[in-house]
């Protein structure tokens, strides 16, 4: 019993530490300026001041940015899923020359920091004329080299290796070709892995700001592509320019910045609350850890 209490105590303490930044963020984002300056107000603001959110949303162009962010995350994710599934299946079910070397390259491409290939890739996209468009994310994903694609290929590889070979043989006896066996048997059986990959790929694309700014935005302010995370990164400057142009006499303070942070987190947070089961069980079911 005592042991149980210790475990609960530890879990609750660590859980609090985990949630601390989030709690701090939400509480600060709801404070008005008087609360911020008043040292007696620590956690609970005297009134729920939602104006911060309105200001932050205006500065970030919340709704258009939100829509673009979804596109930027969703399109490459779909390509990622389809292609990684195919490649993982190819590696898992067929024996061919050079497979070991290819797997080696796959692992190597995961370890290699993207900074090494970043500059020539940037030049390449520039030459192809797709810099500053969403194609810079879709195209690599379409060729199995999207963000964290090696992980996804390995997830599918692991998964398909566990699908019994007898199943495939039965299908081929019934007259199904390779392609048909893949679509009719492998794909439906891989739904847990597909869910995992979709969730993780979406989240990672959504949260990627470094490469998004470099490729999809093309490092120019004229590009129409942006997502919430990038808007947050450039929040201070954009807020100041908008505030000086506009007539509202708002000034940048912690509350507004925390409100902006909360806004950029919010979509994924809501998605997480809805799909929590899929998220926390996904790694289990995708069989990353092997059997």
């Amino acid at each position: 019993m005592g042991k149980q209490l210790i475990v609960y105590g530890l879990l609750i303490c660590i859980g609090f530490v985990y949630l601390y930044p989030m709690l701090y963020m939400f509480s600060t984002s709801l404070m008005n300026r008087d609360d911020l300056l008043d040292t007696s107000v620590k956690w609970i603001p005297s009134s729920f001041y939602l104006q911060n959110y309105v200001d932050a949303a205006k500065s970030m162009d919340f709704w258009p940015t939100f829509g673009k962010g979804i596109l930027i995350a969703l399109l490459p994710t779909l390509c990622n899923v389809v292609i990684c599934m195919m490649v993982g299946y190819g590696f898992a079910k067929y024996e061919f020359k050079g497979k070991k070397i290819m797997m080696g390259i796959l692992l190597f491409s995961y370890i290699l920091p993207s900074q090494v290939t970043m500059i020539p890739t940037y030049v390449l996209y520039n030459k192809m004329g797709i810099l500053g468009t969403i194609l810079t994310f879709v195209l690599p994903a379409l060729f199995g080299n999207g963000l964290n694609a090696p992980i996804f290929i390995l997830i599918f590889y692991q998964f398909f290796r566990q699908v019994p070979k007898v199943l495939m043989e039965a299908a081929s006896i019934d007259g199904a070709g390779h392609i048909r066996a893949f679509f009719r048997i492998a794909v439906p059986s891989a739904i847990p892995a597909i869910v995992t990959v979709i969730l993780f790929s979406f989240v990672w694309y959504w949260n990627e700001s470094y490469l998004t700014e470099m490729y999809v935005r093309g490092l120019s302010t004229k590009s129409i592509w942006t997502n919430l995370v990038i808007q947050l990164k450039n929040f201070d400057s954009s807020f100041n320019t908008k505030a000086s142009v506009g007539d509202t006499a708002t000034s940048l303070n912690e509350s507004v910045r925390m409100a902006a942070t909360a806004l950029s987190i919010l979509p994924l947070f809501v998605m997480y609350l809805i799909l929590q089961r899929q998220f926390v069980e996904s790694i289990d079911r995708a069989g990353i850890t092997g059997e």
Partner: protein
Amino acid sequence: MAKTIKEKKPKIKPGKLEKREARMGYVFVAPWLIGVVLFLLYPLGQSFRYVWYNIRITPVKTNFIWVGTGNFTQIWLENAEFPQQLVTYIWQTIVEVPIIVVFALMIAIMLNGKIKMRGFFRLIFFLPVIIVSGPVMNMLVSEGASTIPSMNVQTIISAFNTFLPLKAAQGVGEIFSNMIMILWYSGVQILIFLSALQKVDPALYEAAKIDGGSGWECFWKITLPTIKPMILLNAVYTVIFLSGNEQNQLINMIENAMFSGTKEKGYGYASAMAWMYAVVVTLIVLLFFLLLGSKKDSYDRMADRRKKALKKEERLHRKIQRRNRRNAGKRERALSSGKYKTYDGSGDY
């Protein structure tokens, strides 16, 4: 006779079916192969070429000026920040990775026990994975949300300084002041450990308990060896995560160097930085591979020894068989030549 035996075991050549299967394998892997050439090998080669040049971009065209190892010497001799940041990065990664992995393992073991509200705790510990991104982290850090105010880092440093050199004490202090960040980076690791722990055969624990093993012994003798591959996996994952993370000053430096308009910096200079960085990351990954991957526990070694002995025995067996066959052939030839009579059981030859 010997010939016929050889013919019985022909070298296996791939048949038509196998060839077709292999071709299908290539078809499935093809998109990725094209991608590797286009988005990995080609840029890799290009960036290796850039390293030796000073690249200036004019509106008309890009000028390549051969500088040899000039970029490297410039980085090491004139750039004060990069080497320093590199050392900081190495130090930080080597310290933080074990902390994250051990911490994740601890949480996973606690969550794996029979506790109420397991789903709820899982929900909390996995939350950071969803929301953690460079700008969000920067925002939270800059507003001081990432440190717990009641934790006085200065006191911790001075406390550790009493028995540790200042540098190490500061390192410890750094860890404490970044505690939340470190914890936030361990979400995926916790899940991987958790699902590995659930696959440990409970019969093993029961057997150990019957033999009088304590929980502590069970952990070291059963849990740890079983999830050992996952420890390596998590360590590598953590290294890669930390190296690609936007909190990492180095990758921002590379980006800045890439687009700095100055004469001596630019693509070549940035590529040189990126290559050195990549080598360091690879070395760190290798270090963890050597630390966690190569060592086998005593049972593995025992099994290996047994396997080797078995193989040796088999070889001996085959040798004897071969000799027997040879001798059988000889005897047959000798018999057929009529030199010897066969023993017909009558008692005399």
